[in-house]
């Protein structure tokens, strides 16, 4: 090692020398040129003359600039005055306004029947409301609190769900919120499904879940389901179940962004803490989103939202976002500050970093249509060779944690099932692969794909670490391949990728929204398992938590045997703010509840 270091230093130094000597030659030559001139006095004076005159020319040119600059300075002077006054008024506003920097952007629309991206849902949560919602700081995500519904009860067979609605909730135009609005919202969501290119809001297909919605009375509504569904409350608490305003929500068509008309750009009923007062998009990415307090908010009396105005600013990547929060351009940076930045911002006194629990998981999928992964033993062998902890330590600096069950910790039914295979368990891997005739000379070779356009956090670095860990087994050789998000999806659908890393954000916080990933058809792993699906349906059909826990545990157990999909890690969550910002809850729901945030001085 040592001599190598020295050797390479020597080489570097050599190059340094070569380059610098090159420059030396050059400058020397310059000088010699000069000397040939200098030995003649007149030439020198002339040269100097030229020089000065040319400098004078530069002056003449810059003079113009300077002039205009001068004028500008003048204007600047009174500008400063104006600015001072402005800043004063800004300062006054400051306590009312929070500027949030983000790298997110609304992907498509704010129509609950179609929107399916984190940021879209985040905005929707601020400007509209669902019947029920998850209490802040809930550890399991199963502590539901009333929102537009005040109370609810469910039949023992989990098929009929009745909700009593809150009274005195009004839309901005004065319309009083009632059961018909609820029915309208869900009927619309279901009717729209065939008209939407991307299908129903992914994951939750209302048309499959809900049989019908009945208005029992002005303030009573009933959902009748097609099958017993214990996680239905979770579904109702998610953004796709937000209430829409019939005036702005046509039945058969989805609502898209329309420039200069924030209200018309979303079908949502403005019954949330905020209005959407400005929404500017340029070339289908957000430029400005401005939220103003909604005076009609049913909870306004108890002082919500605590901050009148929320302004979103949009940055192209995490490093510029970090620079912005450091420079104090923004009050709060939420999604995505990179782990590195988060950690060393944590050291600085000028900002606060808030740490929370994550529910975003990533997992490794195998293409089981063909060799090598049509053989379970190969999948298991590879799964055993993975080294989650080293990846988490290196790439996420410990801010995300190894995941040994597709259901993230904290949630009902989370297990450590995959620990059974261990991490970097090379002996096991080698023995398994040996059975199939793979060894140092004849390695198991396959392509490992990752998404390259930043759809998942540092996916390239992850991939590199996975590759490394697998190849350390000595009997596996991995070829890294990458594609941007669109191509990645199409590759997945055309099933050309041997092994590929995928990720999942919860639609609603319930194991029901995770467990199915093991065999989800849209992952195109070509894996299916009747027993697992039946167990899954049983878990759906019971409200008995202990029983559900067991059932999910069984599913995990089988997953370990099959390794159709191998859980990798669950992310952490963090937000960076100025020290004056308070009231941030980063719980398992991954929601940012802006109406709870306030400024202290």
């Amino acid at each position, binding site marked *: 090692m040592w001599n190598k270091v020295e050797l390479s230093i020597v080489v570097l130094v050599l190059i340094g020398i070569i380059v610098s000597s090159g420059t030396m030659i*050059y*400058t020397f030559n*310059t000088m010699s*040129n000069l000397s040939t*001139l200098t030995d003649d006095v007149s030439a020198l004076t002339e*040269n100097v003359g*030229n020089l000065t*005159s*040319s*400098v*004078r*020319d530069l002056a*003449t*040119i*810059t003079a113009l*600039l300077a002039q205009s600059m001068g004028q500008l300075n003048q*204007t600047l002077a009174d*500008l400063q005055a104006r600015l001072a006054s*402005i800043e004063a008024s800004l300062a006054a506003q400051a306590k009312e*306004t929070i*500027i949030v920097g983000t790298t997110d952007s609304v992907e*498509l*629309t704010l129509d609950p029947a179609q929107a399916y991206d984190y940021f879209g849902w985040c905005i929707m949560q601020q400007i509209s409301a669902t019947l029920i919602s998850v209490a802040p700081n809930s550890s399991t995500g199963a502590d539901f609190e009333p929102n537009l519904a005040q109370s609810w009860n469910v039949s023992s067979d989990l098929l009929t769900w009745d909700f009593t609605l809150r009274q005195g909730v009004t839309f901005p135009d004065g319309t009083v919120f009632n059961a018909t609005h609820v029915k309208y919202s869900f009927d619309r969501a279901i009717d729209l499904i065939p008209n939407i*290119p*991307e*299908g*129903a809001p*992914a994951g939750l297909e209302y048309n499959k879940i809900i049989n019908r919605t009945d208005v029992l009375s002005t303030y009573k509504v009933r959902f009748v389901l097609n099958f017993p569904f214990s996680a239905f409350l979770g579904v109702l608490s998610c953004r796709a179940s937000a209430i829409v305003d019939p005036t702005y929500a046509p039945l058969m068509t989805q609502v*898209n*962004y329309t*420039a200069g008309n924030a209200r018309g750009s979303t079908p949502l009923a403005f019954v949330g803490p905020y209005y959407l007062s400005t929404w*500017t998009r*340029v*070339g*289908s*990415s957000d*430029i400005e989103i401005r939220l103003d307090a909604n005076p009609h908010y049913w909870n306004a009396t108890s002082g919500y939202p605590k901050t009148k105005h929320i*302004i979103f*600013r*949009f*940055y*192209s*990547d995490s490093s*510029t976002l970090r*620079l*912005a929060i450091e*420079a*104090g*351009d*923004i009050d709060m940076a939420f999604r995505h500050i990179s782990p590195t930045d988060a950690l060393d911002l944590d050291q600085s006194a000028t900002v606060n970093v808030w740490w929370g629990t994550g529910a975003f998981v990533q997992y490794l999928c195998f293409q089981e249509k063909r060799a090598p992964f049509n053989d379970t033993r190969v999948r298991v062998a590879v799964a055993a060779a993975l080294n989650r902890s080293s990846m988490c330590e290196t790439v996420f600096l410990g801010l995300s944690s190894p995941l040994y069950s597709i259901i993230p910790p904290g949630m009902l039914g989370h297990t450590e099932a995959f620990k059974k295979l261990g991490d970097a368990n090379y002996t096991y891997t080698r023995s398994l692969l040996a059975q199939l005739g793979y060894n140092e000379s004849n390695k198991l070779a396959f392509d490992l794909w990752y998404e390259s356009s*930043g*759809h998942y956090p540092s996916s390239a670095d992850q991939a590199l670490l996975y590759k490394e860990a697998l190849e350390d087994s000595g009997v596996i050789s991995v070829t890294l391949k990458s594609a*941007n*998000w*669109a*191509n990645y999806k*199409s590759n997945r*659908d055309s099933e050309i990728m041997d092994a590929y890393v995928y990720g999942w954000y919860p639609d609603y916080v319930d194991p029901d929204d995770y467990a199915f990933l093991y065999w989800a*058809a*849209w992952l195109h792993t070509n894996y299916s398992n009747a027993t697992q699906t039946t167990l899954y349906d049983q878990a759906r059909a019971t409200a008995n938590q202990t029983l559900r826990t067991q059932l999910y545990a069984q599913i995990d157990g089988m997953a370990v045997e099959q390794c159709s999909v191998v859980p990798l890690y669950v992310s952490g969550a963090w937000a960076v703010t100025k020290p004056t910002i308070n009231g941030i809850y980063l719980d398992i729901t991954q929601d940012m509840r802006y109406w709870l945030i306030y400024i202290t001085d």
Partner: protein
Amino acid sequence: MGLRSYVITRVFLTIPTLLLLLTMVFLVMRVLPGDPVSLHFEKKADPLQMEQMRHLLGMDKPLWAQYFDYIAGLVDVNYFSAHGYPNLGKSMQSFEEVGGQVFSAFPATLELAIYSMIIASALGIPLGVIASKSYNSVLDHLIRGFGTVTYAVPVFFLGVILQLIFGVYLHWLPTGLRINPSVVPPPTITGLYTVDSLLQGNFVKFFESSKALILPSLTLGLILSGIFIRLTRTNMLETLRLDFVTAARARGLKDSTVTYGYALRNAFLPILTMVGLQFAMLLGGAILTETTFSWPGLGRYIVQRINFRDYTAIQGAVVMFGLFVALVSLIVDILYAYVDPRIRM
């Protein structure tokens, strides 16, 4: 021939070039492997829906028909007068009008381009002149060295360095965006913040928007100034050698008169043409600069659309770039004709 007739012919000459350009873009986008629609859509799109989408995007037609629609759409005057932008088809992702998106994104790029052009020429041309005047002197070599180095620096590298110095350490200038977050952007008239804010008579906004412009345009301008220096220098060296310059000197005219009135004014013609060509390169650099400074322009638009395989959008943006470049070169040529009496007469 007269200036007017020259301009007219020149305008007519651009048309075939444009048509060619459009055709190439279309082919590039269509000849590539895979069917855009099926590539684009997510899991749930079943065959029937895909058909709907194809129909909606007019991709169920044969290629030549698509081509025809595409050209026809571009020259559809009614559409233009109705929407205020040409028909570039619908985005494959959001089904919004690509034309609208592209036109809304373009001003940012334009503003960036203009200002960096100004910086580049304000820096490059005088330096080039000075270098050429003190030919082979230390000054000349220094300026030349500067030019060469700036040319070799990757745009985004320079951008990051500037961000770090002026944004993070000195806190003088914003590190991104077109205007200070706490200020509401000026109402869109031209789309150029600096211009709009002035039209609106709001100096604070002007101040803020120009502050935000400094770093990006400086980054791009510096890179470009290298080329300007080289161009100016060589052309000046050539003209300074011409007889009429010596003759002017022999008549005892002032040094500045000779340099600018004679040498530069004649060297200016070739410089002008080159500048026109450089504009294309500048737009290329703009893409990287926009990404570095979160500048919401056409470049960033393309980059984002690529990640969604939004073919129609990419095509639209590329066409927009093409149109713009064609326009610039047209203007340059007309300017040329105007400056050079030999054509003007």
